[in-house]
């Protein structure tokens, strides 16, 4: 099991939520104090640095027009970490390629970071959550197809080394010829997030790592099972390498249960503060009309992340969106989840969220690195994904 420390880099010092309609898309930037924001950027970069020093890997992500995430340009953060960290592998999860206007630019950005980090980059692609379509003015109809087209274009751009090729589809280029070439050959490992069972098979067929985020016990198992089945059908073998499955969850380790739960309440801001009008979460075309109609019925399942609002740490642990407690307890919780879902190889550790302080986050990271990481190291495969050997 590899651990990837990340923070969404929130800006949590907001007025009472009654004062605004939505924390995403329309929240005026007058709520943002540049002095406080600069302090937060510095803290978040320091925490990633500390994770590297402690032997953990790091993960970064991107959202737009929101106080939940101060990273609207993830290659900038990853580019900084490529230079300042020494050993950590750097996961971008991910590049919202259905929304990016220029996928070749994404290929170029990733190739640069891969070189600057001496081949420590892992490249995630995401379709993007529904709140992202308005900031990007990205047509919600056909987004999944566009994500896969951009994926195909980027992989071809990375792996074509004999001069330009053309691409005439949703995007049009006559001369795709990316410099620099990626450091890892044939290309950095690729990850894709999945939330629905229907999205898993294509990721499995492509052989990419599937990442699930706070989907809890039941939904995660269904997602992994769909991936495993498609993997077996596509690759002719029953066993999926554990490093092709990842789970993202809040993690807090403390010396006492009380301290861990107190921190978990602060981190719950991630669930509690996500105030978004329903319509921003379901732009027409983002989900099939059948899904839109079904989601409005009383029987529609509520995602774990939405259910977690205001819940106790015990509830969040019980439902698999939080691992918190003393080191032994956290190890036990991770193992229980691991056994329930049939195994996975990457723990995407949201080790900071909400208004958790620098020192609170640091204490948890230290305890995690010292006691938890060694205890779960043997879970899953330790093998590296494809493509990690540098060109000589």
């Amino acid at each position, binding site marked *: 099991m590899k651990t990837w420390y990340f923070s969404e880099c929130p800006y949590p010092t907001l007025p009472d939520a009654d004062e605004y309609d939505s924390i995403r898309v329309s929240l005026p930037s007058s709520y943002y104090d540049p002095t406080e924001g600069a302090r937060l950027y510095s803290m978040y970069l320091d925490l990633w640095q500390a994770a590297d020093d402690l032997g953990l890997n790091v993960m970064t992500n991107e959202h737009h027009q929101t106080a939940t995430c101060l990273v609207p340009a993830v290659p900038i953060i990853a580019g900084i970490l490529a230079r300042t960290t020494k050993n950590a592998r750097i996961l971008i999860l991910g590049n919202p390629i259905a929304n990016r206007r220029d996928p070749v630019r994404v290929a170029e950005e990733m190739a640069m970071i891969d070189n600057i980090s001496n081949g420590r980059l892992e490249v995630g692609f995401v379709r993007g959550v529904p709140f992202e379509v308005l900031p990007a003015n990205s*047509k*919600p*109809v056909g987004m999944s197809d566009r994500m896969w087209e951009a994926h195909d274009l980027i992989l071809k751009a990375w792996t074509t080394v004999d001069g330009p090729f053309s691409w005439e589809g949703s995007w049009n280029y006559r001369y795709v010829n990316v410099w620099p070439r990626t450091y890892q050959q044939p290309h950095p490992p690729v990850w894709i997030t999945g939330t629905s069972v229907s999205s898993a098979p294509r990721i499995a067929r492509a052989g990419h790592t599937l990442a699930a985020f706070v989907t809890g016990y039941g939904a995660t198992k269904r997602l992994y099972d769909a991936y495993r089945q498609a993997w077996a059908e596509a690759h002719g073998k029953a066993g999926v390498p554990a490093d092709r499955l990842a789970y993202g969850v809040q993690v807090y380790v403390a010396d006492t249960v009380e301290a861990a739960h107190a921190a978990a309440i602060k981190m719950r801001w991630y669930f509690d503060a996500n105030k978004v*009008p329903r*319509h921003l979460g379901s*732009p*027409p075309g983002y989900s099939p009309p*059948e899904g839109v*109609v079904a989601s409005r019925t009383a029987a529609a399942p509520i995602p774990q992340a939405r259910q977690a609002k205001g819940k106790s740490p015990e509830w969040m642990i019980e439902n698999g969106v939080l691992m918190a407690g003393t080191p032994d307890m956290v190890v036990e919780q991770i193992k229980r989840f691991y056994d329930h879902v049939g195994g996975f190889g990457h723990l995407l550790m949201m080790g900071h969220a909400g208004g958790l302080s620098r020192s609170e986050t640091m204490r948890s990271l230290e305890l995690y690195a010292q006691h938890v990481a060694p205890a779960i190291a043997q879970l899953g495969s330790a093998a590296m994904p494809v493509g990690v050997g540098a060109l000589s």
Partner: protein
Amino acid sequence: MSMSSLQVPVWNAEVQVDLRINPGLPRTVLYLHSEEGPRACAPFLTELGRSASIIAPHHPGFGGAARHEQIKRPRELAILYADLLDRLGVASVDLVGSSLGGWIALEMATMTPARFPSLVAISPLGMKFNARDERSFAEVMVTSDEIRRELLYKHVEHDPWRDVKSPELLLEHATQLESLVHYAWEPYLHEPALAPILPRVSMAALVISGAGDQLVPAAYYEELVSRLPDADNVIAARSGHFPDIEEPTAVATLVSQFHADRSPTLGRLLGVPADRNVS
């Protein structure tokens, strides 16, 4: 009068068309429905059917008709319907379109103006006249049903989709909204290449807009009328963005009267200016 519905093969698509044919009436209308779908305009067509035969295609993706992903913009629907008329053997027809359908009608009118003796554009979308940092159209795609209804209807109880409960109709409505997104997401509800060629719309034209339209500012319709060579503007006092849905009888009467006054039938064409001649 005979009413029928048929599937007409055009390109590799099947176009669903409702026909209300009355050989005793002197004119035929091509009616292009709004984004509220063919179901919502049935009362209007019943009224208009008293004075004209009507050809009413369902836009692909509306009223249960399948969408064709290769048809991406209203201009392509205009080309589709030009071929549809050819398939039906209709050489000349009066154009009536509402909102999205009004946009398609304007596109058709710019392509072959001589084919259409008249045009009635009810709250047509499709153009942008104001500055690049001014909204042309309110947000009606990514918004709540309640806000959308308030923006589009002068009287919210006129929204034919308001009290829909059956799963089939809810699915039809959700599909139609998705189809509007498919056709008109970007540029939002307009085609930049359309406004510059409006002088081609040389036939007698009537622009009908609603007094309570909060999707489109009144100045838009005034600007449109000023750019059309031969157009008048009538305000439907008791309507929002869909006068053909909110005031079906009054608007049908208005259209019939306009046809009688401004768009002579073939039998009365002798002596009218050449640019109105349809032969």
